[in-house]
């Protein structure tokens, strides 16, 4: 790994200042993505700004209609939170299915969402629940946040501080994990929200996206059979050694029907 200057700021302001001041600075949260990338020299930042211990950036607050999760909150904390389990169990389940226990002990929600890995789990929940991404300078709607492969609406030096998830009437997340990494080959998050039905897909495309045809069909009739014959086009979907685009398109349908069935059967809310 190439050397860098290490900073451990004690406030968000200090972190913002450091990020703006350095030549090619990177935030370090759990490091579960950034450090492997740096080992391969795919990233060679001049400065590392370690925000993993920044107080105020982690923690879970449940209000009457939302769950607010600090950006540096670890996956394990979300998975084991009794409060999250009570109001958005699908989110706790999703967090508990990320990688392995050691990844969950260190990886953070902000790092995952900022990274917009095509196979990451959290983006499906952020988009599926219509969450708001709050940064050091503004609030961004989930619908305009994920813009492409490892691309988001974030500015170079913008820091996610928390993510606000509206509490849905019901939601479910089903993923078809890669047997090796546990990343989502395909994952589908279905939610009945105050703003309507939302179906978000991860793993299949360059970044998380909404399956609007699925949403329309489910708005008419909320049952797995309502999705019979509804598909996402394979065009532009990911293809790799694990699965080609047609197979992923097929999996989106299967996984979505499972998620709908889970809600219809009153499984995960």
């Amino acid at each position, binding site marked *: *790994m190439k050397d860098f200057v290490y900073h451990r700021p004690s406030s968000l302001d200090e972190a913002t200042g450091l990020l703006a001041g350095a030549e090619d600075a990177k935030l370090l949260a759990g490091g*579960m993505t950034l*450090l492997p990338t740096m*080992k391969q020299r795919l990233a060679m930042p001049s400065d590392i700004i*370690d925000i993993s211990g920044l107080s105020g950036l982690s923690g879970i607050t449940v209000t009457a209609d939302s769950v607010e999760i600090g950006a540096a909150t670890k996956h394990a904390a979300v998975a084991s939170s009794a409060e999250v389990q009570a109001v958005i169990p699908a989110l706790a389940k999703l967090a508990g299915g990320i990688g*392995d*226990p050691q*990844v969950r002990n*260190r990886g953070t929600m902000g790092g995952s969402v900022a990274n917009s890995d095509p196979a990451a789990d959290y983006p499906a929940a952020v988009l599926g629940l219509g969450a708001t991404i709050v940064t050091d300078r503004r609030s961004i709607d989930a619908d305009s946040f994920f813009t492409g492969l490892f691309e988001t609406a974030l500015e170079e030096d913008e820091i996610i501080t928390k993510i606000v998830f509206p509490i849905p009437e019901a939601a479910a997340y089903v993923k078809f994990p890669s047997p090796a990494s546990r990343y989502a080959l395909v994952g589908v998050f279905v939610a009945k929200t105050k703003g309507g039905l939302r179906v978000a897909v991860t793993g299949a495309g360059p970044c998380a996206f909404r399956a609007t045809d699925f949403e329309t069909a489910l708005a008419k009739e909320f049952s797995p059979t309502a999705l019979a014959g509804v598909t996402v086009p394979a065009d532009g979907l990911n293809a790799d050694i694990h699965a080609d685009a047609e197979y992923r398109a097929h999996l989106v349908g299967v996984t979505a029907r499972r998620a709908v069935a889970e809600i219809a059967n009153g499984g995960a809310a």
Partner: protein
Amino acid sequence: MQIALTLNGKEVSAEVRPSLLLSEFLREQLGLTGTHVGCDTSQCGACVVHVDGVSMKSCTMLAVSAAGTAVTTIEGLAQGDVLHPMQQAFHECHGLQCGFCTPGMVMSAIEFAETTPEPTEEKARAWLEGNICRCTGYQNIIDSMLAGAAKMKSTQAGA
């Protein structure tokens, strides 16, 4: 950079370069080679240690990030000649063959025992997602984890 941390119960301070991984710090700078490095790509779990009581992959953490924490490695478990109950269980249940994965397995298994109120085979298997073994076929590791968890519970109850 100067860092200070508690390592296996003792205060340690050292000068490290920022890019030094915790695994490299332990093995190369301090000579604690019980922590193994199998993959160095965050997959195998041979490098698992405890940081503030929580299991982490030391190959995917900077030594500087461990400043101010309490780190426990496999070397810090036994009390003199008396093995930790989880080590004892791996010994009794033949939870290892070549032993390469074992330090990480034991460190991971201890957190499993501490955080799982009612351990079952299914829960143990799910917990091992991040620990790979090329030798045993896992069956004896699962047996060790469950036996070790029971031992830890009874040791605690007796203490």
